[in-house]
């Protein structure tokens, strides 16, 4: 899509605001009004992550929950038809020997569904999506390096090959947390191609794009590796670290490296900080903006903080410059992430010099806090023109954004 066409879409679909004074070419998204289209209820289990492709959504489940006197563990994948406003539960798939399914993701070609399992023995379950409504298990991968549990699993393509990036649980000082990379070229027979201890004390998640691997290393912040995209000699089997930065407050949990198709900017990565939380009630942790224009010297330049709540996973509508963040007990928030986020007026800076996105007027609004029930949103995904939100307490929400 050419830039003018993309800009036209932005103009026609979002209420416009003034352009960024520091980046006059950028068309800024305006405030967003959310409307709930529907809720697919999951009362018997806690809902975790979601992944949406076309008219089908998949949600994973987490931990143990007692409902009507029956305790169910997080071993179910829920399959949803999301074509209409009424979300229809089509089927559930039980993953044996798992009590928590954290991450779930459809591959970029729509052919595979990969699910991480906890606790010991940790694994990933790989499903074939020839029939998207009937995932068929093709393999279950585990190794000595995944024993404690696989906390997150990102499925990304590097140099044309599909890989799963597994963040493996810490099992104490004798088994440090580690990143394991698995080649999914043959889904029936995944092959472990790399394992490396990392994280302080956890490696919690990764973001992979254009041969660059970004890792969320909790109190060590984020580290950037080259795995075939920056000419530093790094490969999937031997990632080469380019740079790192300890984000403010640590507890680096997840990352999104923004590629703005309108401005062409690849300058910023967004890091979710997951602070202490009381599930269902309270959460903590900010969104940190890291300038990665010089990957050897990434630096935090801005942040977004929401009183009484903390962020979790992100989904970015890059064509509009809107970052949607799951915000646990505060539902969903939308941020304007277009333009130069590290350039602000003195009044918009925190005492430590970072730009405060809230003071910069980049909070575009939120959703789901006005429902009749409390919410606790784990993940979000912008797909098509809709935003989907997985809510630990209630299930799967579908929202329209205007």
């Amino acid at each position: 899509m050419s830039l003018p066409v993309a800009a036209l879409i932005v103009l026609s679909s979002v209420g416009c605001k003034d352009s960024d004074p520091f980046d006059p070419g950028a068309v800024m998204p305006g405030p967003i009004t959310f409307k709930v289209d529907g809720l697919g209820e999951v009362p018997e289990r806690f809902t975790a992550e979601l992944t949406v492709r076309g008219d089908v959504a998949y949600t994973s489940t987490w931990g143990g929950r007692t409902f009507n006197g029956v305790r169910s563990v997080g071993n179910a994948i829920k399959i949803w038809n999301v074509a209409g406003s009424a979300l229809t539960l089509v089927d559930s798939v039980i993953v044996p020997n798992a009590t928590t399914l954290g991450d779930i993701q459809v591959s970029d070609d729509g052919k595979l569904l990969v699910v991480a399992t906890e606790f010991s023995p940790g694994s990933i379950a790989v499903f074939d999506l020839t029939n998207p409504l009937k995932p068929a298990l093709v393999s279950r991968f585990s190794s000595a390096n995944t024993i404690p549990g696989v906390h997150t699993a990102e499925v990304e393509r590097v140099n044309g090959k599909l890989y799963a990036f597994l963040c493996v649980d810490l099992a104490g000082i004798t088994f440090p947390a580690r990143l394991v990379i698995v080649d999914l070229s043959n889904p029936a027979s995944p092959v472990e191609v790399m394992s490396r201890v990392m994280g302080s004390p956890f490696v919690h998640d990764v973001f992979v794009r254009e041969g660059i691997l970004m890792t969320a290393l909790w109190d060590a912040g984020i580290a950037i590796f080259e795995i075939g995209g920056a000419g530093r000699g790094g490969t999937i089997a031997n990632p080469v670290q380019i740079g790192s930065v300890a984000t403010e407050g640590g507890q680096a949990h997840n990352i999104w490296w923004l590629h703005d198709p309108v401005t062409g900017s690849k300058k910023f990565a967004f890091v979710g900080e997951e602070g202490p939380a009381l599930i269902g009630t309270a959460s903590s942790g900010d969104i940190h903006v890291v300038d990665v224009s010089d990957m050897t010297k990434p630096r935090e330049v801005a942040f977004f903080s929401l009183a009484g709540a903390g962020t979790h996973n992100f989904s970015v509508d890059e064509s509009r410059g809107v970052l949607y963040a799951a915000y646990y007990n505060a539902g969903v928030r939308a941020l304007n992430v277009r333009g130069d986020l590290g350039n602000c007026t003195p009044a918009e800076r925190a005492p430590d010099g970072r730009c405060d996105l809230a003071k910069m007027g980049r909070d575009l609004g939120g959703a789901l806090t006005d429902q009749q029930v409390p919410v606790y949103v784990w993940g979000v995904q912008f797909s098509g023109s809709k935003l989907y939100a997985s809510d630990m307490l209630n299930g799967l929400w579908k929202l329209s954004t205007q």
Partner: protein
Amino acid sequence: MLRWVCVAGALISICAPLAITAQHTHAESPASDSQSIWSPGASGILLVTHASPAHAGRSLTEGYLSQPMIMLSGHDRSDRLSLNSIVDFEGLTLKRGELNAGMFGEGYVDRRHPHTYLHELVVTGTTAIGAARASIAVGKGFVAFGTPDPMTRPFAKYPVNHHLSQILERALITGAVRTGPLLVEASSFNGDEPTSPSDWPESKRLFDSWSVRGTLFPVAGIEVQGSFARVKSPELDAGGGLDQRKLNLSFEHSHEGTRIPHHVLAEWARSADYSGSDEAFAFTSFLIEGEAEVRGFTFAGRVERTERPEEERLANVFRTARPAQDFSILGKTRWTVETLALSRGVRAGSARIAPFIEVSHARPVAVLRPTAFEPRDFYGARSLWSVSIGARVSVGMMHTSAGQYGAASRHAPSTMGHMH
């Protein structure tokens, strides 16, 4: 069962000769009162517990050999150098944990976890400084914080507040000074909690945590205690977890040698988890317990109200994910527990057997709502009952003063140079 029999047999075979060969051994009396330099002993509790409900409306009945231990305490003739040691065999007899509604910690919940094999090994040097006594204790044992360990108290079942009110099984160095009615202790220790019965304090974590405890003895039989501790990352042995700041205040009254010997303990505790300098969670406890001996029968009662975190449970609902992979908890539950116990001890030489019955009633309620852990749903009832019947068996010296090292010993001579 075979394992229990073996452990019980081993304890008896090891300790009976020790007890006999000790020059003069007093069961349940301190070493310093005896003529012995070394005071060996062994003890254990054989019991059956019926918990109703234990989980999801279902009752469980289980038998245990709980708290099987051998002990050896001693001192040199000048009482300047002393040793306290306990080997605990719960790693063999309590692998699944002991049903104990409300109890939590070290990966167990609603079951008490087994302690480490080397429960205590502390060497203490004591000296006089004018009218004061001072000591330095080094080894693995009980940190100068909070109230006496539940093993030394009159109930088989632990209070919910164990991990709020005691810090134990740490590599430590503890200094103590007693002058007149005031005792001040300070400990430096490793913050990491044991991760299994065979676990050792992490060498990288030595002395990353500290505590102070002050005790006032205004009149005979009264103790007023206040203590504070900062514990680094107790739940993550590798470090990097939430830190704890703990506060404990207590009052103890003991009356021995009257017609009705009795003991009363009242305590308030607060333990808060910190992320950096920000308080994340805080849990409080109030407990009062007492025991009295009437015509050879010991009556004991305990009431406590303690808050605990609810953590993600595994497929085994009595176990939690440890270490957790983030700093979230499912909820906060307030436990109100009333416990009554009745026992009668019988001596046979240096051995003692004390059959007992212990009944407790617990009511857990969610402190905050909405919550991801609703006790009524999880347990299938509002009230949880527990009945235990069994017997405490001991031979030789009993461990009655966990963590009171050197100058902190309640039974220490008032001046140095006391000859036995």
